[in-house]
């Protein structure tokens, strides 16, 4: 039992899960049971896949030791460029693929510039944050083109059976599972962790660290773009302003889920738990009818609290003295 508890608490993402359950219970009580009502879960589950996909991409990139502040802008750029392409008569699938390729290109540029000139990715992607947002506005010509009405949006937005989950949730689950597998089962995942854990060591052991990082940059951008697509299809309109401020939220989700800012450590599951925590806090506060002026206050305090509680559980776990691996 003690050993089990230790192993459990040792993993920050599982500690996060415990915390999530506590928060859910509190908010469930405070909202008179509405938090877990079918309708509300349905609402939360609409936004979750989008946020979580971005957080997963950012987590991946943070594990390999880099940063991406441009995700929010890419989140807007992909659906906007897709709409423009669609409106020029290209079929849906091709437009989606083209849009994702644009995201891949943005990620490539982020990575290439960062590594080629050895500058911090913080700056490269901060620059890209502005550039991609500007491009989004430019290609929309200021006025967002409407989406053609006959798109197969059911593929992304319809509810699955009578469940509170949309198709987008399915996409998210599949992608998350794939990325998680990439990270823990493949040699590429090993390289990502090694690169972020100690770049010089990884390089000296023969890992092509630059290529690994560029791949992560690209994956991160593509995931952010795909998430933006999901949102736009769900809401029906490609506004040029969507995704603003998403970059900090995604990093927060990653860190709450146990990803180390210094790199090398993190899991896909943690990113999901982190996103869920953030969404639950947001949702629970709305249900608890917090005043507009105090809303951010509560968000700030609870975010801090989540990470503190997580760190505390980790510390407790380390204090449990069980002879490991005998």
């Amino acid at each position, binding site marked *: 039992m003690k050993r089990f508890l230790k192993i459990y608490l040792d993993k920050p993402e599982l500690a996060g899960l415990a915390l999530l359950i506590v928060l859910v219970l509190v908010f469930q009580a405070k909202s008179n049971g509405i938090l877990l009502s079918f309708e509300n879960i349905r609402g939360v589950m609409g936004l979750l896949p989008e946020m979580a996909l971005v957080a997963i991409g950012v987590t991946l990139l943070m594990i390999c030791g880099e940063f991406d502040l441009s995700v929010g802008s890419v989140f807007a750029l992909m659906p906007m460029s897709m709409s423009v392409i669609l409106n020029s008569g290209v079929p849906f699938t091709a437009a989606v693929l083209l849009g994702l390729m644009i995201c891949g290109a943005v990620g490539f540029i982020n990575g290439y510039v960062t590594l080629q000139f050895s500058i911090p990715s913080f700056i490269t992607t901060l620059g890209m944050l502005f550039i991609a947002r500007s491009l989004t506005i430019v290609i929309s010509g*200021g006025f967002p083109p409407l989406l053609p009405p006959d798109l197969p949006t059911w593929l992304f937005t319809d509810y699955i059976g009578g469940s509170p989950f949309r198709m987008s949730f399915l996409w998210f689950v599949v992608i998350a599972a794939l990325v998680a597998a990439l990270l823990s089962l493949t040699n590429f995942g090993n390289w990502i962790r090694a690169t972020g854990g100690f770049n010089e060591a990884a390089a000296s052991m023969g890992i092509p660290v630059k290529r690994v990082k560029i791949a992560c940059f690209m994956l991160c951008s593509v995931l952010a773009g795909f998430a933006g697509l999901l949102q736009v299809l769900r*809401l029906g309109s490609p506004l040029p302003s969507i995704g603003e401020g998403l970059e900090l939220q995604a990093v927060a989700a990653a860190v709450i889920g146990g990803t180390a800012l210094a790199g090398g450590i993190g899991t896909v599951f943690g990113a999901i738990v982190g996103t869920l925590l953030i969404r639950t806090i947001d949702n629970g506060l709305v249900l608890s009818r917090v005043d507009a*002026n105090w809303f951010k206050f509560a968000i700030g305090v609870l975010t801090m609290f989540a990470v503190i509680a997580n760190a505390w559980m980790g510390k407790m776990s380390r204090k449990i003295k069980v002879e490991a691996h005998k």
Partner: protein
Amino acid sequence: EGLNIAFISHSSASNTFWQAVKKGYDDACEKVGASCQLILTQTEGAVEQAVANLQAAIASRPDAIFVAIVDNNAYDNLIKEAVDSGILVLAVNGDDSEGAKGNARKAFIGQGFSAAGYSLAKAQSENFPKEGPLNLVVGVNAPGQTWSEQRAGGVTKFLEEYKAEHSDREINITRVDSATDLALTADRIGAYLNANPDTTAYFDTGYWHAGVAKVLKDRGIEPGKVLLGGFDLVPEVLQQMQAGYVQVQVDQQPYMQGFIPVMQAYLWKTAGLTPSDVDTGQGIVTPEDVPTILELAKQGLR
């Protein structure tokens, strides 16, 4: 040798509303052969950036400067400086709450935030049920930002008056932080409506209630059960008006806000005519107006 004009806004380029202003502004400038520049900020509602831009604009000595005055004090000195050096300064979109007394600008073209909020609430109140309790929600999209606070203030002002008038009815007014993101607003207000299904009306200080309408539609709630209203005519809102989910929308006619001041500046320069205040409308738009507006929207005029 045409006019040289700079237009200083407190808003950022991703704000669709300002893109319509830009269109009117650019079109007008082309018509009169003026050389025009619109200067936006990098973060939404950044007064300090707008002031810095105003200063830079003054340094380049244009013939006229249009500025959205969203604070009562911050712009005053610079506007005086500009006017003193012979530049025509017009307030566009936003003005000092004291009007012409507030600073040295020559005229105001636009619509006051507070007044617009007041008229929105007034128009929507026509649709309130005639009896029973009223649960009214004011969504402050950006707490602390002038445009959002003042619009919310206008809305609240009317609602308080309404409440006083109808002291026999139970009327609750709630302020929530509804965020400036279609998805987030939809999520938050959607959740709120779950928790408070007896909500009568939701007022947005922007156009983000279009997301809320989408949520209501998804849930199969019929139009009109929860009244929705807000500001600015973006395509999303027009769609939802057609669907019946949004009952009233305040339109400040952004194209006009961009277009008129250029004309006034032109007349001032060429004919010595004094610019005068233009109210671009308390423009209450209801679903009947939508088809015509959609037509104009295609041309980027609304």
